[in-house]
């Protein structure tokens, strides 16, 4: 039984990271109606910037994360301003091509600056904790707590502030947002900032238990796509629940089926859920 709870805990850890990444992806999808393939590259940049801040400037872990949030958020804003904004009247395929272009650009950039090596990120929270027969490093607990805090703050922001409500309003009806006086350019920039910030948080939290390398975003972004498809494209609760569903399925599957198949599980889950609910778990029916 212990191993079951241990794996449940691990599922909670990876699920938290997945949810954060998927949230950023789904927010941008809601605004632009395109899948931002470059989101995984933002995640990767988040890992590298936190690491660089810690190693070269000697910043403390949390301070480094803060810098990373701001920098990656701004990279997101730049993406919107320099690329997507100019494509707003172009056919959707152009956005997708541009997104892949930015993904390649950022990865090549990382190769050039940081090299292809797998780097480790040290955490000040490496202590081993043992509670109720579950053993884990403090970092894993921190991932869960921090992710939940971030998601809760984001929820309050989107639901209770005018600024946050503009993001939801624009994703539900762009013309409607225009007609109440919302500046849709500003909302698009804000959304990209949040999206980049969430990717940076996710990467910075998970890097100490994974590794930092140019391709670190690949599998994460693929899974984030699976999550937002499962949860319903553009749905915020869907992204959160989907992230945890995937986290649990993976960690339990790795234990009880085989760890070799860990990464396949996500895609089997995708096929299963889409067979039963083709619009995703949280898709709203019946409204235009």
């Amino acid at each position, binding site marked *: 039984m212990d191993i079951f709870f241990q794996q449940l805990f691990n599922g909670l850890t990876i699920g938290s990271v997945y949810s954060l990444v998927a949230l950023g992806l789904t927010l941008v999808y809601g605004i632009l109606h395109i899948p931002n393939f470059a989101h995984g590259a933002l995640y990767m940049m988040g890992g590298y910037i936190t690491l660089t801040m810690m190693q070269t400037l000697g910043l403390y872990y949390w301070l480094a994360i803060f810098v990373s949030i701001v920098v990656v958020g701004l990279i997101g804003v730049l993406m919107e301003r320099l690329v997507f904004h100019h494509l707003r009247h172009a056919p959707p395929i152009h956005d997708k091509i541009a997104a892949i272009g930015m993904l390649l650009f950022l990865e090549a950039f990382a190769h050039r600056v940081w090299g292809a090596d797998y780097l480790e990120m040290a955490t000040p929270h490496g202590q081993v904790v043992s509670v109720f027969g579950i053993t884990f490093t403090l970092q894993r607990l921190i991932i869960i707590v921090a992710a939940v805090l971030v998601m809760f703050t984001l929820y309050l922001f989107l639901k209770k502030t*005018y600024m946050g*409500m*503009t993001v*939801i*309003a624009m994703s*539900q*009806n762009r*013309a*409607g*947002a*225009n*007609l*109440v*006086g*919302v*500046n*849709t350019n500003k909302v698009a920039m804000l959304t990209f900032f949040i999206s980049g910030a969430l990717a940076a948080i996710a990467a910075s939290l998970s890097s100490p238990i994974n590794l930092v390398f140019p391709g670190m975003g690949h599998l994460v972004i693929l899974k984030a796509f699976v999550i937002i498809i499962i949860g319903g494209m553009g749905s915020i609760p869907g992204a959160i629940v989907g992230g945890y569903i995937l986290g649990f399925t993976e960690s339990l599957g790795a234990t009880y089926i085989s760890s070799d198949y860990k990464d396949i599980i996500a895609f089997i889950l995708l096929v299963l859920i889409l067979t039963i609910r083709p619009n995703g778990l949280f898709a*709203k029916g019946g*409204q*235009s």
Partner: protein
Amino acid sequence: MLKLNNVSVNYGAFTAVKNVDIEVHPGEIVVLLGSNGAGKSTTFNSISGLNKPSSGEILYDEQNIVGFPPDQIVNLGIIQCAEGRNLFPGMTVQENLMMGGYVHRKNKIHVKERLEEVYEMFPILKEKHNESAGSLSGGQQQMVAIGRALMGDPQYMLLDEPSIGLAPLIVEQMFAKIKQINDGGTSILLAEQNANAALKIADRGYVFENGQIAVQGTAEELLTNEEVRKAYIGA
């Protein structure tokens, strides 16, 4: 005063609106009549900055607002309640109305007062304030749309086909509310196919045909005009 001077709007090679002159004086209700596709909505969207006229000017108190972004036009006090309503379907009724007060977001007390006024005008919305806007009936959604526009404190309100798809009894109530809003000091530009009901509350009107203004006059003139009666009133 809101004044359109010789406005034309093209969609590619197609001219949707051609050399249109419209005036709305403070305190007036002015109605635009015309069948589907005659150019009413296009005209509205030009005023709101959602599309750009290819020529002509749109003057708001002597200032040409052509080229202003939509949010700035809302800030000036010209607010459109669009055909199809453009609500935020997943938000609650109250959240939709609050978004209508977005331009006054810094003045929380003002927004709150406006909200009470809208609830007073449409008591059913208060009852349903916590339900999602997408779950309401057509008539109630139209009330949310009008209420949301009112939340922005419009000087000029553009109402695009508020009666579309509504039951006759509800249509009558809706026009009574529009008159009530006008009595409160808001000038109204109303696009309608229901000419009879619209002309009863309007001061003046314009008849659109194929993107051009075919007839214009006071409400009484239009009500007694033979052509207008034949084409839009059916008597």
